[in-house]
């Protein structure tokens, strides 16, 4: 992995925004003076333990994008990170509203003609679903997005079970699938479960954006199905295979920043929005 650029500038503006009862936490990074581009970027985090594991990479990505001339807003969804709400109170439809709030906020912060959403895992899926609901998103960049919510839930269950297997005391029937109420330290409510199982990028029927980038760090078959689906919607899309660690699976004390993937994202955005 290449040396990471040092984050030395005081260029972050941490702040709360949105309705007072459901305030969201965001970090705005202004573009490097003299290099301003006409597109703003909103970064959508993944959820739960994947949010913790992805935070450092997002911080780096925001820095690199701002250095490349993009105004960037990365924000925590409701019930996540520093935003208002208990961890058990967030759910997909709420999070889609949050993206709308964040888009409105970056428009207030900066006068940009175009907007692009970027997201890792479920953050990418939410970006696509938000784009599907509105018509003002010009570009979407997905990094190993969750294509199918049901498979995602199974993945989460497996990860949780693996954690329990290594737990100090493996209690008898400490947790069963029927009583599934938490995943790796975060609550999993019935509403979350129901809405997550409805997530399906192959069911999107309109054009979520004018152009789409999909970064995939592995060779799963699902990417071919997603590619075919996006082509059937006549969306110009680019699929890039960029080998890198699956950072969302890493232990929280081994936070990784996959430079080649961040480079690919910045390079695509810089190429499209000159």
């Amino acid at each position, binding site marked *: 992995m290449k040396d990471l650029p*040092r*984050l*030395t*500038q*005081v260029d*972050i503006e*941490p*702040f*709360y925004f949105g309705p007072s009862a459901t*305030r969201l*936490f965001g*970090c705005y990074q202004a573009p490097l003076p003299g290099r301003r581009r006409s597109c703003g970027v909103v970064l959508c985090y993944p959820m739960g*333990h994947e949010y*913790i594991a992805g*935070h*450092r990479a997002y*911080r780096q990505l925001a820095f690199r994008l701002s250095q490349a001339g993009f105004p960037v807003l990365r924000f925590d969804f409701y019930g*996540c*990170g*520093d935003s*208002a709400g*208990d*961890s058990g109170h967030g759910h997909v439809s709420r999070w889609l509203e949050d993206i709308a709030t964040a888009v409105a906020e970056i428009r207030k912060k900066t006068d940009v003609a175009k907007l692009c959403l970027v997201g890792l895992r479920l953050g990418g899926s939410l970006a696509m679903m938000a784009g599907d609901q509105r018509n003002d998103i010009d570009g979407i960049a997905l990094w190993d997005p969750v294509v199918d919510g049901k498979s995602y839930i199974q993945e989460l269950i497996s990860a949780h079970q693996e*954690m329990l297997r290594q*737990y*100090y*005391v*493996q*209690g*008898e029937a400490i947790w069963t699938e029927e009583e599934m*109420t*938490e995943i*790796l*330290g*975060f*609550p999993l409510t019935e509403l979350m479960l129901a809405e997550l199982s409805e997530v399906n990028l192959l069911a999107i029927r309109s054009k979520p954006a004018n152009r789409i980038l999909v970064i995939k760090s592995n060779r799963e078959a699902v990417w071919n199905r997603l590619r075919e689906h996006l082509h059937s919607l006549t969306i110009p899309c680019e699929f890039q295979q960029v080998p890198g660690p699956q950072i969302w699976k890493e232990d*929280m*004390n081994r*936070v990784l920043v996959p430079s080649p993937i961040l480079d690919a994202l910045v390079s695509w955005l810089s190429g499209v929005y000159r």
Partner: protein
Amino acid sequence: MTEEAVLFGRTKSLVGIITDPPQAKRNTELAAFILLNAGIVHRVGPHRLFVKMARHLASMGFVVLRFDHSGIGDSNVREDKLPFEASAISETQEAMNCLSRMRDSKRFVLFGLCSGTLTSFRTACGDLRVVGAVLLNALLKSPETISASTVSYVIDRKIARSYVHSKVFHVQSWLKFLTGEADYRKILRVLYSRISSVFFARKQIGGADNQVVADLRGLFDRGVSLFFIFSEGTGVLEYFRLKLEDAIEKLNPGKWNVEIIRETDHTFTLLRHQEELLQVVGRWASQTLLNCHRQRA
């Protein structure tokens, strides 16, 4: 309860969140809490635990600041190349300055998990404004300064305890044992190696470090309240029992607090353990800080 994002520190590049109590409970005479990074996890803490903790303490009346040290989370890397051990203390003091300036707080309780405990402990030793520390899984010294023989001994004890806990007290294990399904040779081998290491090596490990004892004495002489919390399933607890528990009891008999959260891991992953931790810390804060404050008033 409200939350405010702040930038503070010498170069205004440390990012933190101040959680304020409801208006009716605000009291600048109460000590304020400062939550320090657990390893490299940013200020929300493992499993967002620090957000829950900050909100819980704020609901009781405490002002709480949780922030990122330089180079962690959203805070910028320092330019002065100060080693982390020194910069972490300096930045914790800057966090206290920030709360003094913005909330008129005068006394502080530091809250750390894992590496955050060392920063809490060392800052408390050198800054008279610190009146308490909540130390979750604390070693009170850098892990790299602990000898290999001590680490090996502690791990052996942890495994032995885990084995006893998970096998000896489980009905299934006894059924296997009594019905002849158990691997007796394996059991004997494990028991022999663990028990022999526990008994024969202990004398060589020795007690608490002189410097740590001196620092603890200084804190107790100042009346600083220390609350140690340990996860049952960790080597850190074994280390504490081996090296620190007796020394602390000798220094301050009956006037310090320790709590062990049963059957949990290093970062309190399961929700019921997180909830238990909130309650335990809340109880301590109520008894130690709120009651003291009422008595003084």
